[in-house]
């Protein structure tokens, strides 16, 4: 009975950690620009696909992973420079629509150049799972959870203790005021795209041994990641982590204790409830709007 519970919990944490990774990317760009970047899922997919491509080309795993993170980062910068920056003054909504367009282009290019087949990547430290409290956890899950935790800590440090991070926050809060105190706001937006693309790609590489990947894998991960980010409170790193794990665990519990047919409905119903009572998400600070 208890073993069963732990098994559902571990399954949920494994999936939830992948959602959390995706949620972090949304959080970053939202922090810098109040924009929801719907191309986030494609950066995750790119990371996974490229890691598979490079390992198949015979590169050792660490080199392949590094390249699979660097290339999408450059793609992120390219997207920002080529389509986001020219419309800098536009409404947030316009920019959001542009990111949807960018995601379609990236997905289409990958589909044409790398093919439509699903691909697998071997787990970093062997396929043998870890047994804990009578339940099993794939060893790759530990990688995902560990790296996600490190990234959250790193982001917290970046935003609270470094000038670059604070400049980013300041730009998000008030672009004009930030410019007046000498912050290069154009540079901040580029940096946030580079960071979130790189993080997304890293997440994509880490989850691929568990989830497999294909040119259209970004749609699902992006969607669930977005939900996780909203539940946790947009713009909050800790919230992204908790939101992701919550969605994953709720799904697993729903499948285990209710019915697998209603698996996707369970978290969404609960999320609606959460947002009904806490419209700004679990972790968002209370803000007062001046009228």
């Amino acid at each position, binding site marked *: 009975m208890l073993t*069963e519970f732990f*098994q*559902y919990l*571990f*399954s*949920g944490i*494994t*999936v939830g950690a*992948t959602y959390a990774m995706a949620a972090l990317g949304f959080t970053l760009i939202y922090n810098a620009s109040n924009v929801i970047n719907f191309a986030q899922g494609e950066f995750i997919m790119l990371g996974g696909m490229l890691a598979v491509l490079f390992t198949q080309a015979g590169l050792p795993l660490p080199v392949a992973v590094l390249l699979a993170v660097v290339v999408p980062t450059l793609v992120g910068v390219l997207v920002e420079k080529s389509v986001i920056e020219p419309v800098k003054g536009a409404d947030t909504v316009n920019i959001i629509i542009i990111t949807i367009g960018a995601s379609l282009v990236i997905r289409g290019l990958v*589909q044409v150049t790398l093919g*439509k*087949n*699903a*691909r*697998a990547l*071997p787990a970093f430290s062997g*396929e043998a*799972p870890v047994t804990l409290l009578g339940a*099993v956890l*794939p060893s790759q899950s530990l990688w995902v959870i560990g790296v996600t935790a490190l990234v959250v800590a790193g982001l917290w440090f970046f935003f609270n203790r470094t000038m670059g991070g604070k400049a980013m926050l300041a730009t998000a809060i008030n672009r004009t005021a930030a410019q007046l105190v000498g912050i290069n706001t154009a540079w901040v937006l580029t940096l946030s795209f580079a960071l979130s693309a790189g993080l997304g790609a890293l997440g994509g590489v880490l*989850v691929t041994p*568990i*989830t*497999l990947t*294909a040119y*259209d894998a970004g*749609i*699902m991960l992006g969607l669930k990641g977005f939900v996780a980010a909203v539940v946790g409170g947009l713009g909050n790193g800790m919230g992204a982590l908790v939101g992701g794990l919550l969605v994953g665990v709720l799904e*697993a*519990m729903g*499948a*285990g204790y209710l019915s*697998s*047919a209603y*698996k*996707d409905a369970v978290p969404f119903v609960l999320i609606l409830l959460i947002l009904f009572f806490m419209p700004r998400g679990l972790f968002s600070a209370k803000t007062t709007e001046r009228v």
Partner: protein
Amino acid sequence: MKTLAKTLAFCAATLLPLMAQAAEPIRIGSVLSVSGPAAFLGDPEAKTLEMYVAQINKQGGVLGREVKLVHYDDGGDASKANGFAKRLIDDDKVDFLVGGTTSGSTMSMVPLAEKAGIPFISLAGAVVIVEPVKKWVFKTPHSDRMAAEKVFVDMQKRGITKVALLSETSGFGQSGKKETEAVAAKYGITLVANETYGPKDTDMGPQLTKIKNTPGVQAVFVFGLGQGPAIVTKNYRQLGIDLPLYQSHGVASDEFLKLAGPAAEGVRLPSPAQIIGDKLPADDPQKPVVTAYNAAYKAAYNESTSTFGGYAYDGLMLMVQAVTAAGSTDRAKVRDALEATKGHVGVSGTFTMSPTDHMGLDLSSFRMLEVKNGDWALLP
């Protein structure tokens, strides 16, 4: 100079229509899901059709006439398939239809083919396409019911009676679930657990844990397509479940071995002979057809073949054979010739159609395979 131009103009005016008439091509219309979620089915189908239409034309065509393929991509959308089928029939004036990658697309095209009276060979799996029998509609793939029956025959041999079913919520998985539930009793099998998963799910641990803790389960049968079954197989090994694991013909491709890796060891599934062409015994009537198809596809596209491309090959060849047998492209005559197909050896099996059977394959066209040492092994 003037006379030459005149002569040329005269030639052009009189000879060209004549030549065109002599070479009026046989038009085969096709709607396939080359992009979208069913792309991994539609892509090899389209490639196969293109390659063999070119080859047939190189060898002089059919009845001395060129074959022309008119092809549209429905992106896996049944309503688009309906629109394209209308266009093929009304505007492109095709003689026959070969295509319909998914069961949904096929069923949206069926009323049009029936109304226009056009012989239509579908490449989709569901039983509803040919049951009840529709006058103008035929299909080449094995049906999901046959896959379930083949698996149950193997379970019977091993004395298994209590089975857990894990099916995908896709059209393929749900149709498979329905057929599996319908034929289980016939083979003395009880389904003691009945779980589902979504085609884009990334972890099936909870469903498998539930199955593992169901008392009396002797084997697990997974009905799905693409990457889902590979993840199920991985989770199955991680959870340390040591019951026999059966998959459907939906994963009968080398892709599955690549995705599931060592976890696939010991998995059993029903499959067309196509994926084990080189391992078939030399006296197998399908061997030459299968090896020739595999080699030609590999040479043309440098990709390994899938059973789906094989269905397209069979669809095209059945149509060509029916046109040859009918001696004309008269639609009614070709339809009758299709229905009279006997012992046509294809990539997917040996086809024998009848007025009550518009698929023409029996259980022997499925081979039971087991994954051994990372490769397929043929079970007796």
